[in-house]
């Protein structure tokens, strides 16, 4: 209901009419066509999507940012294109959870046209996927993207020849500059036939198995039976599920055929199948690729790219990146922006004005306190969300978008892989972990890019335990900025907990360590427009996630006060807080932390910045609140992504651990009589 209303509203705002449903009286006589963008990670699918629809999909120079499917619309003449941007997939048989989403799109909900996006420079190794799509017998067009970079590398693609070879429409584009987008629009709106292209010839044993399996598949499937048979041969879970539903009787016989065919290949059938596809792709590539003049001198970006992964030179660059992050989040965000918004805007103008207004409007303190009291919806909820948390998170998202678009993150991944192996993770996991420094909830969603369930659980655990989100980070940096020793202790303790608990968890959780292999894209200068759009999209997600919760918290506390439950809960927390050597006033920041990490941090900031607390307590409080609880939002996402049992297990480990570390730290610091 609301979704429909929103869609209508959006239509009014953008001048598009109709609600998108068929037979809508508002809809003009447009022919709608669904188009799905398909292709390997990092070939510019999202950039193409943006160019086509003008709306926003998160684009980045890192394999694996499109976790959910993004939809948008474009109009070409009389055709309304419904464009879907799918997560990157190397093959029709998915390797990871997110690739599964792309496969699902084709198996269950096939679009009117699939646009396979490939990178010109890597045409040779991306063509096998094109051949798989041809094999699936679905309407198909090919987009050879990033032709400008290929030209610089001395490579040209003969698009006309490629189109003849594959017998399907082919367009060359450079999405970042908009080159070829008009032709692409025309192709997408044009006729969309199933390409009659030649299929790949596999070794005899495999061909025989394909024929036998195909003969058993009686039901109607969205993709060709040949294609489905190949997926079954590769023991693809998605294909099996479809066959189990449609041809349940055939499954046992199919399994026998698969086992028989696999016996011919000790290393599995994947290799001969992949090699046959590659051979066919090589034949095509050989006819359409031309070498041109190549630049000899490496560009500045290339030199910098090499230095960034160098074991020695890479470290100062990493330090520089961290310092940049500190400058933007710690100084600009926590210092300048929060000061401006919280102290000036809310402290001097908004809060007094609103308080006066509500006290006049609602002369009953009981009611006015809902809006403007100590825990008022506006004076506390809105202020925390808008003046403290949003500027911090926003500043972080800007930095993260720059890092993503520049291509630095994969380089960081290869630098840390050896350390991460100790934690049972591969270097790939830096992406969610670094994003966790922005918002752990969002990062927990992004752990989907990791390949094994073990790795996803370990990353989820570390995110919940030892990765402070940017609100916490900003607040902690703000609190400890005048205590350099305290900051050092905080960093040391959190880092130690991260490493020790990570390696312990890796030992306890059964399973093999993940392998690390990652494409290193060239360093690219981030486009201001992309960074701005991406930050905006993330902030929008964040605001939608956070502001209602913040307001809700205010209401719940107000109710709690009203019913005298809240003071009781706080009183129950006091002994725990005192055990850490903290004043009673810190109790409510822990309580708030349950609901949102950042809320707790913001509260702590207010309680502690007031002064009257020792340096030791400050360090103990910041350490405990960093480690302590995945917040409600994060817990909900954990439960959704990993299951309730894992979420509960993670939480029940973290709570005692956080307080335990805080307790021991307090004992040590007090006993050693350090002055912080």
């Amino acid at each position, binding site marked *: 209901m609301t979704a429909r209303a929103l869609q209508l509203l959006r239509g009014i705002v953008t001048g598009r009419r109709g609600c998108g449903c068929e037979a809508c009286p508002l809809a003009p006589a447009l022919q709608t066509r669904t188009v799905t963008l398909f292709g390997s990670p990092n070939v510019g699918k999202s950039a193409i999507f943006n160019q086509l629809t003008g709306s926003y999909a998160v684009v980045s120079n890192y394999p694996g940012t499109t976790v959910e499917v993004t939809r948008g619309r474009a109009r070409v003449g009389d055709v309304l294109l419904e464009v879907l941007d799918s997560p990157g997939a190397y093959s029709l048989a998915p390797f990871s959870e997110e690739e599964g989403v792309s496969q699902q799109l084709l198996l269950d909900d096939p679009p009117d046209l699939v646009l396979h996006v490939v990178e010109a420079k890597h045409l040779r190794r991306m063509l096998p996927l094109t051949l798989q799509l041809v094999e699936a017998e679905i309407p198909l067009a090919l987009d050879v993207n990033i032709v400008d970079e290929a030209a610089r590398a001395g*490579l040209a693609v003969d698009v006309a020849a490629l189109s003849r070879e594959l017998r399907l429409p082919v367009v060359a584009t450079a999405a970042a500059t908009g080159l070829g987008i008009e032709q692409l629009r025309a192709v997408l709106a044009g006729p969309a036939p199933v390409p009659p292209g030649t299929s790949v010839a596999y070794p005899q044993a495999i061909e025989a198995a394909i024929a036998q399996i195909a003969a058993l598949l009686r039901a109607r499937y969205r993709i060709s039976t040949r294609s489905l048979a190949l997926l079954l041969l590769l023991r693809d879970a998605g294909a099996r599920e479809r066959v189990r539903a449609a041809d349940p009787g055939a499954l046992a016989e199919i399994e026998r055929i698969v086992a028989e065919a696999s016996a011919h290949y000790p290393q599995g059938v994947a290799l001969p199948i992949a090699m046959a596809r590659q051979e066919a792709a090589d034949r095509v590539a050989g006819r359409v690729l031309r070498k041109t003049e190549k630049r000899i001198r*490496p560009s500045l970006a290339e030199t910098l790219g090499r230095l960034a992964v160098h074991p020695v030179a890479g470290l100062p660059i990493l330090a520089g990146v961290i310092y940049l992050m500190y400058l933007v989040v710690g100084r600009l965000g926590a210092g300048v922006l929060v000061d401006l918004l919280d102290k000036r805007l809310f402290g001097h103008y908004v809060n007094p004005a609103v308080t006066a207004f509500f006290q006049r409007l609602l002369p009953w303190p009981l009611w006015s306190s809902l809006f403007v009291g100590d825990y008022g919806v506006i004076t506390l909820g809105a202020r925390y969300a808008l003046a403290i948390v949003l500027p911090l998170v926003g500043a972080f998202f800007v930095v993260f978008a720059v890092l993503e678009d520049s291509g630095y993150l994969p380089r960081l991944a290869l630098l840390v*892989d050896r350390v991460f192996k100790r934690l049972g993770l591969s270097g790939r996991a830096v992406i969610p972990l670094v994003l966790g420094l922005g918002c752990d909830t969002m990062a927990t969603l992004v752990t989907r890019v990791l390949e094994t369930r073990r790795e996803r659980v370990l990353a989820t655990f570390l995110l919940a335990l030892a990765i402070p989100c940017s609100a916490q980070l900003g607040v902690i940096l703000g609190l400890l900025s005048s205590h350099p020793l305290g900051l050092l202790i905080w960093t040391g303790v959190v880092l130690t907990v991260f490493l020790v608990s990570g390696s312990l968890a890796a030992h306890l959780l059964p399973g093999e360590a993940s392998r690390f292999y990652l494409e290193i*894209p060239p360093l690219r200068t981030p486009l201001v427009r992309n960074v701005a759009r991406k930050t905006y999209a993330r902030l929008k997600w964040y605001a939608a996630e956070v502001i209602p919760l913040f307001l809700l918290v205010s209401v719940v506390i107000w109710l709690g006060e009203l019913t005298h439950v809240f003071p009781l809960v706080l009183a129950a927390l006091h002994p725990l807080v005192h055990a850490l050597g903290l004043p009673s006033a810190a109790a409510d920041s822990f309580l708030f932390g349950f609901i949102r990490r950042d809320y707790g941090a913001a509260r702590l900031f207010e309680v502690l910045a007031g002064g009257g607390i020792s340096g030791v307590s400050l360090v103990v409080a910041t350490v405990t609140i960093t480690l302590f609880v995945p917040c409600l939002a994060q817990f909900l996402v954990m439960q959704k992504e990993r299951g309730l049992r894992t979420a509960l297990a993670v939480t029940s480990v973290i709570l005692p651990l956080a307080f335990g570390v805080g307790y021991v730290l307090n004992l040590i610091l007090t006993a050693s009589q350090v002055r912080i």
Partner: protein
Amino acid sequence: MPELELSEQAEEALASVWSERETSGRGELAARELAGDEAARKELREAGLIAESSGMVSLTEAGEAEAAAIIRRERLAERLLTDVLGVGEGLMAEAACRFEHVLRRGIDDQVCTLLGHPRVCPHGSPIPPGACCRAGANAAGKVVSALADLAPGQTGVIAYIQGRRRDLVPRLLAMGAVPGTPVTLRQRFPSFVLDLGNGQVAVDAETARDIYVQLKAVPPAALRRPRWLARRFRLRRGQSKRER
């Protein structure tokens, strides 16, 4: 111990017991399923390589070692033929069979070193390791090498990927590690970084051991430079370009 000179028939018979264990996991083979004729069986029995009881044949300790050596020669021969000589599937079985008998003890270690101590045959069956593999012997003139044994700056083309993990091979292929693709190792630490075709890829040490590279030309400089130095502190940009 004097060099055993088994007949071709006897070697085949011995190898068939080994293969049986690989495919079915059983350590013995019914006597009538044994390859070769009665004479071969007799020869093996007299050399003390097989033990027979109630119609079943199994390997003795000496037989175990001899069978491993035979299998090793056979599979190394297959590797040599595919990786270096480019002999296709059709011809291979026969050619490998002849080659195998030529690779007598001692020579097989040299071939193995030349091929970078491969761990599986082109069909994916394990090659029993020899003394050279355990010693990690390195040859200046080797033609195939695991990526993990390359020095930064060395170039070649991808020869093959050996995947103990079912999913590894297709993923590496998808990233561009397709046999025949030119490859240059850029650095070894903290991860292996390689120029692969037109792109760049990073892999960990375990994966680098699974990627085998047919070496084109070994830059003499790379061999003279102490390994630890080459490993850590050289970026070696542009070296391969000059060669081209």
